[in-house]
């Protein structure tokens, strides 16, 4: 299986290449990708240099243009696709049908990957994307079990990439406007979820309160480790009971299931984390590279350290395990 690694900066890109990535994915510094955070992402020139560096090492570069084109501003997405093709991206990772149609028609030789944001969760959906846009690979939404994936790969003529490590969307990706409901900034149109611009921390007596827009997302008692107020990882009240209504502040880790995913016909494992620093990228990529090559029994020790770097320092196999539902 290929290892697909994140890069939010040219420095992280270099680290990922050095650490053993088969491909690095990144995006432009604007709303055309789903990690549109301040200080992140690539200019055209930075992408050109990074692709050159990757190619010299036999590493591929995937460019994520995986937000949905805002009506009236389509030119921003079209020019990003034009430039990514011209600069030499090995694949474009797309979510919007209109943009897929544009790329498929104008650049029929360009490799098209379907972003997780498109939420293609079954064989009929993937066949549709292959037939209409010539998709070569689909990144599966984090709603399927390993058994579901195995059944799926047998039915389609398309490579499958799955998330293996990092941040975990609880909701079907690309189909969530919770953050938009609270902040007015849309993950789908603006490329930001729970944006820092709308985050506020406030001391309330002994408690530290984290807010997103006008809403309290969590409240931490004295001595309790606080965290970033990602909406779906917040603590809420349902019928007088307080708790993590959707998901605890955990991140995804399916290293234990590498063999099962390989047997299920998965072509590539994807690491989330374009917003993470270069040291994190280097550590995660090199550890996973070693884990992929190691015997199952040796893997646990290799990745134990990684878990301490995860969000909330706790991990889950998420939807890959049926019991998560």
């Amino acid at each position, binding site marked *: 299986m290929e290892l697909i690694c994140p890069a939010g900066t040219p420095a992280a890109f270099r680290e990922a290449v050095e650490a053993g990535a088969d491909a690095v994915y990144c995006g432009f510094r604007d709303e055309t990708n789903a990690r549109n955070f301040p200080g992140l992402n690539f200019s055209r020139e930075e992408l050109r240099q990074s692709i050159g560096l990757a190619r010299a090492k036999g590493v591929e570069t995937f460019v994520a243009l995986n937000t949905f084109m805002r009506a009236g501003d389509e030119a921003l997405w079209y020019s990003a696709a034009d430039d990514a093709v011209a600069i030499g991206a090995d694949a474009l990772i797309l979510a919007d*049908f209109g943009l897929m149609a544009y790329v498929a028609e104008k650049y029929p030789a360009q490799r098209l990957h379907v972003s997780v944001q498109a939420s293609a969760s079954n064989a009929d959906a993937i066949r549709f994307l292959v037939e209409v846009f010539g998709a070569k690979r689909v990144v599966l939404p984090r709603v399927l079990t390993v058994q579901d994936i195995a059944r799926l790969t047998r039915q389609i003529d398309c490579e499958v990439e799955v998330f293996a490590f990092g941040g975990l969307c609880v909701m*079907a990706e690309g189909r969530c406007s919770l953050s938009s409901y609270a902040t007015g900034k849309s993950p789908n*149109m603006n490329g930001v979820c729970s944006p820092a611009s709308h985050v506020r921390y406030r001391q309330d007596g002994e408690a530290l309160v984290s807010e997103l827009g006008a809403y309290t997302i969590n409240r931490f008692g004295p001595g309790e480790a606080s965290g970033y107020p990602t909406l779906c990882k917040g603590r809420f009240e349902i019928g007088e009971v307080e708790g993590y209504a959707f998901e605890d502040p955990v991140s995804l880790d399916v290293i234990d299931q590498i063999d099962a995913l390989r047997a299920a016909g998965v072509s590539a494992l994807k690491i989330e984390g374009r917003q993470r620093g270069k040291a994190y990228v280097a550590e995660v990529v090199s550890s996973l590279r070693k884990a992929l090559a190691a015997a199952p029994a040796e893997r646990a020790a290799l990745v134990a350290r990684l878990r301490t770097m995860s969000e909330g320092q706790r991990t889950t196999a998420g939807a890959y395990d049926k019991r998560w539902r």
Partner: protein
Amino acid sequence: MTETSKPALSLGPVYFLWDGPKWRDFYFRIADEAPVEHVTLGETVCSKRQHFSEPHIAEVVERLEAAGKRVTLSTLAMVTLERESRHVRDLIRDSAHPVEANDLSALGLVKGKPHSIGPLVNVYNAATARMLAARGADNICLPPELPAGSILQMLAAMPGFSFELFAFGRMPLAISARCAHARSKGLTKDNCQFICGEDPDGLPLRTLDRQSFLVLNGVQTMSNTCAVLVDDLAPLVEAGLSRVRLSPQDCDMVRVAALYRAVLDGEMDGREALAGLAEAYPGVPFSNGFLHQKEGAAWVSRGRNAAVAHG
């Protein structure tokens, strides 16, 4: 409103789990009393619930059609299991009625069959709408998240095509493989005991500071506020909007439909309709923030519309 452009009213599928008789009686009353021209129905949120409404679908469709309503059958919003795939395939193959595609699996299967696109498919721009129209979609209900600017762009780009606006109801904001509703009651999705049926209008989720925020509806998360665009319709109708969708809540939907119809017919002012809606669906705050490119939960009253909508 101009005489030439009166949009049709459409009723979306019931997103909540109502027991069979309640579901049937709701549609019987819609058939008999509600001034809606289009009705889309069928379980959309969770395949586990299908057996509640299925025994009643035939009689409901018959009653609606006898009353002159045009019936469309909804497909599931998320398809992951083989059983679910089979259900969508069978529905599309065997249905004598048009279907509403609510996920990508249906999109591939509906080609060549009469169909429309539901609000749970990501249509954010005219390029996407054109692609779907070229494959045979004859109506697109746009996602609730779209700002007026995007809607106007699409209306202008595809004159004559039927676009529909999600204009009343709690907004579907997210869907998950995990059932937060079951989880909140100590259960899991696979052993849920259909607990979401206890909350026919959604289970309120509040912040730790007791702010109303969201409601859970099985695997779907919805807004606590009710989208109410009744006083925002005029410029969209002038620009060519064809249909206005009302999404069923556990309230007097006949009255809701009558109020929207009266506004679309120019017989009632939007503000007066707002007062009527507050009576028909009491205790639930209204929102129209997405349309005005603000937080979806926000309410923008008409006095400020122009500044926001065109700003």
